[in-house]
């Protein structure tokens, strides 16, 4: 392995590790103020919304709004499956099957 490559990777590893590690070491086992606990309670829903929406509704580089993507069309029934079944396994399997089927159908339509 080239030395410069190893150096780059170790540098990347360090700066990736720090944001993962610091909050856990600083915040766990500590009594946090109630507003912070309530704020952190909203973080998962907020992060998931922020991760999902652009991945479904934008495309290209630079990104632009694109609401005609197959991902978005498949996401809607997948979301309904998640709401109805509340099953992770069922949602993932249904989502994959729908995505696979949608791809096949789109390939046939001229």
């Amino acid at each position, binding site marked *: *392995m*080239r030395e410069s*490559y*190893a150096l*780059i*990777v*170790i*540098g*990347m*590893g360090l*700066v*990736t*590790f720090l*944001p*993962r*590690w*610091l*909050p856990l070491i600083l*915040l*766990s*086992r500590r009594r946090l103020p109630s*507003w912070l606990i*309530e*704020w*952190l309670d*909203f*973080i*998962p*829903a*907020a*992060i*998931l*919304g*922020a*991760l*999902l*929406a*652009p991945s*479904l*509704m*934008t495309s290209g580089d*630079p*990104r632009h*709004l694109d609401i005609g993507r197959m*991902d978005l069309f498949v*996401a809607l029934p*997948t*979301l309904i499956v*998640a*709401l109805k079944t*509340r*099953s*992770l396994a069922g*949602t993932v399997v249904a*989502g*994959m099957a*729908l995505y*696979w*089927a949608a*791809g096949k159908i789109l390939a046939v339509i001229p």
Partner: protein
Amino acid sequence: MTALLFRSLLWNEVKMTDKDRILTAEPQKGAALKRVLADGMAAAWPICLGYFPIGLAFGVIAQKSGLSPLEIGFMSLVVFAGSSQFIGVSMLAAGAGVLSIVATTFVVNIRHLLMSSALALHLDRPGRWWLTLFSYGVTDESFALNLARFHGDGWDWRRALVLNHTANATWIAATVIGGYGGELIPEGAFGMDFALTAMFLCLLVFQLRGRIHVVVALLAGGISVVLATVTPGNGYIIAAAVTAATAGLFLKRKRVPRTEGLP
């Protein structure tokens, strides 16, 4: 072990029964450890399913830009962050310097600050070394899955740790396989490319525990779409999440007057 794993797979959603509680509490440490390993590994499957095609794709791209399978595996082991590995390899291929690659990686991964902060609420048991080992495995996916699990029964930091490292092992393996010849595996097989999106959708549903959570998620989605289209990079994730969570806090405090100290 296999039977256990199979059962956990089938009853993935089932809450811990009383029998299980007695099992984990009894002094037979070996059996309890096996159960922790089986639970953690079984729960990780949606992540593994999603990491596999992405890892393969990364391996193929990395190999094409001149990295050996060993170098690919080394990066996956040390960095373990999908998007920044893709960016790192493309910058390497473009001849970028150490500092600019490391700085870009830092910016791309700073969103983990938020995730580890939210996870910290549920990790008051493990000591520092275990926390360190755990933190290495915090990704978008393991964060979302572990938090959903922590809100239910039968989940603890040991299982969460196993989940993190199962996902990590899958990622390393997939990237190395990709480096050896991932082109041979057909692209888009079985809708695997959609596995992580479907998992995130379901985990989002699990997080919608009240009307304010729905508002927060919609707000984060709206803000992130706008920011993603007008700004480069992925700073939009952290900006949208912080804004939406803060708005949620204000909404909650406004709607529910504080009653602390009242009888």
